[in-house]
């Protein structure tokens, strides 16, 4: 069973902007799926259509087998959405926001109260439950939207940049929570600009660019497509010019920093052998950007532009 099936999805806005061009996606039940793309690529439009905040121009969408054209309410009952921007009443109390959300899905009051307690405690908001939402910090507001999206206990959770503007500690806490949720059976679709987040969490990734899916593959096989990795080396002795290393592309960033590009056939040992031969001592080594980010940049940059 697929949690989500999207077939030939098109969206043209009233102003003529073509946001989506023939999108096809399938997300298996239980998957942790990343939908990546630059700003304006079409991620939020896709999510907007999934949660029926955006009207599609054409195409078919099924959520857990329910056709959104024929069984809209059954399809919507299977999905929970955490939008990119805050969309709650800032004057309402936190407990009211989440309990009302459960009510909109037809969850009885008593059950809604139990779920509110469970998820507010889980995400560290229980103590704040009597406060109006506007008094929460940015990170707390993000967590509130996650709690709200879970109130109908949806089998499919869609998160549109859930960790934007969230500090590192909290981000890691959210990663842990989402992994736990996924392990318990919830299918998760995630959009994010933090590509290490997608690489860390997701098993499957689709990249959308200018309204088209340009890549859709399991994370591992996608990473393996990366033929090149870029390393940054801090060296002990300053150099006036970039050293010539046999068969290895090397660029000098400053007197004590080198950027090395290795292709998939070259090992780190080959690099160090060349460095030893040139008499260069390496103090530290790091990847310039993470692997998924490198691939993402290469896939989405216009032809002829170098990263």
């Amino acid at each position, binding site marked *: 069973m697929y949690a989500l099936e999207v077939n030939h999805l098109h969206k043209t806005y009233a102003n003529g902007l073509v946001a989506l061009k023939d999108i096809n996606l399938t997300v298996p039940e239980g998957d942790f799926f990343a939908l990546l793309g630059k700003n304006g690529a079409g991620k939020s439009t896709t999510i907007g259509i999934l949660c*029926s905040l955006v009207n599609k121009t054409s195409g078919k969408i099924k959520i857990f087998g329910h056709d959104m054209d024929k069984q809209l309410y059954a399809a919507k009952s299977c999905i929970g*959405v955490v939008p990119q921007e805050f969309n709650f*009443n800032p004057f309402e109390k936190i407990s009211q926001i989440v309990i009302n*959300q459960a009510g*909109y*899905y*037809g969850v009885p009051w008593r059950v809604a109260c139990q779920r509110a307690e469970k998820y507010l405690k889980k995400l560290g908001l229980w103590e704040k439950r009597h406060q109006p939402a506007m008094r929460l910090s940015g990170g707390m507001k993000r967590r509130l939207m996650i709690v709200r999206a879970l109130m109908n206990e949806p089998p499919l959770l869609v998160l549109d940049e859930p960790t934007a503007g969230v500090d590192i500690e909290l981000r890691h806490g959210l990663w842990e929570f989402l992994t736990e949720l996924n392990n318990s059976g919830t299918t998760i679709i995630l959009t994010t600009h933090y590509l290490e987040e997608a690489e860390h969490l997701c098993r499957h990734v689709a990249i959308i660019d200018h309204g088209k899916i340009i890549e859709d593959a399991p994370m591992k096989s996608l990473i393996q497509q990366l033929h090149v990795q870029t390393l940054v080396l801090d060296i002990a002795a300053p150099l006036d010019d970039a050293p010539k290393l046999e068969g290895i592309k090397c660029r000098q960033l400053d007197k004590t920093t080198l950027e090395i590009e290795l292709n998939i056939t070259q090992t780190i040992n080959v690099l160090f052998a060349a460095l030893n031969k040139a008499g260069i001592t390496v103090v530290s080594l790091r990847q310039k950007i993470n692997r998924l980010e490198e691939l993402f940049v290469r896939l989405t940059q216009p032809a002829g532009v170098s990263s």
Partner: protein
Amino acid sequence: MNLIISYPNRVALYTILRKETTRFLRIWTQTLLPSAITSTLYFIIFGKLIGSQIQPIHGVSYMQYIVPGLVMQAIMLNAYSNTSSSFFGAKFSRSVEEMLVSSMPDLTIMLGYTAGGALRGILTGCIVLMISMLFTHIHIQSFTIVILMAVLSALLFSLGGLINAIFAKKFDDVSFVPTFILTPLTYLGGIFFSISQLSPFWQKVALLNPILNIVDTFRQGMLGTSDIDVRFGFLLVTVLFLILIGWCMMLLRRGTGLRT
């Protein structure tokens, strides 16, 4: 029909109704008090001070004559402004998306908001009626007409407010209709006068005002006197109500002002 009566939809409907009722009761100084103060001033100035100089109209004192109109005015304006401000506020804060993404049908959203606005309208109407009893004695002639007309009018204007909020893009759009259309029509709608006092031409013009028909039908139920046929009043309100239901459902289905 299943969309309304299924258990999840009843829970959803009750949730909107509870939220709306809690909202207008929490801010009662903005929602309930103004009508109480305004109507008290009308009763003192028009009813007591000026009304004592005016001859009875259709056999009732002027103070008694203006009571049904002021009660109905409170019902109509409060029902309208409740849904228009609340739903537009939800649009403005984008919290309306909480409802739009849920599995609740559009019909439930419409019913919940309409019922919430109607409840405030009726509650305010009851407050104005109670205040009127401090100034005059009202012997209600037909509870059936009074209750039916109050409920139908509250639902009609509440629905009107919801449609206004669906179209509204800024706060000015929400206040335009009550300020420039509804309030003038209510004052010209026979609250303070009988159309029999007008020339035949203006009588015909006045009858085109739906609010006059509503107020006079309500007055028939309350005082037993009216310038129009109450059957026409009920027919008018029912037809307008059905038209607004169809319009509102079409707007919600299309996502006008709500979905892109």
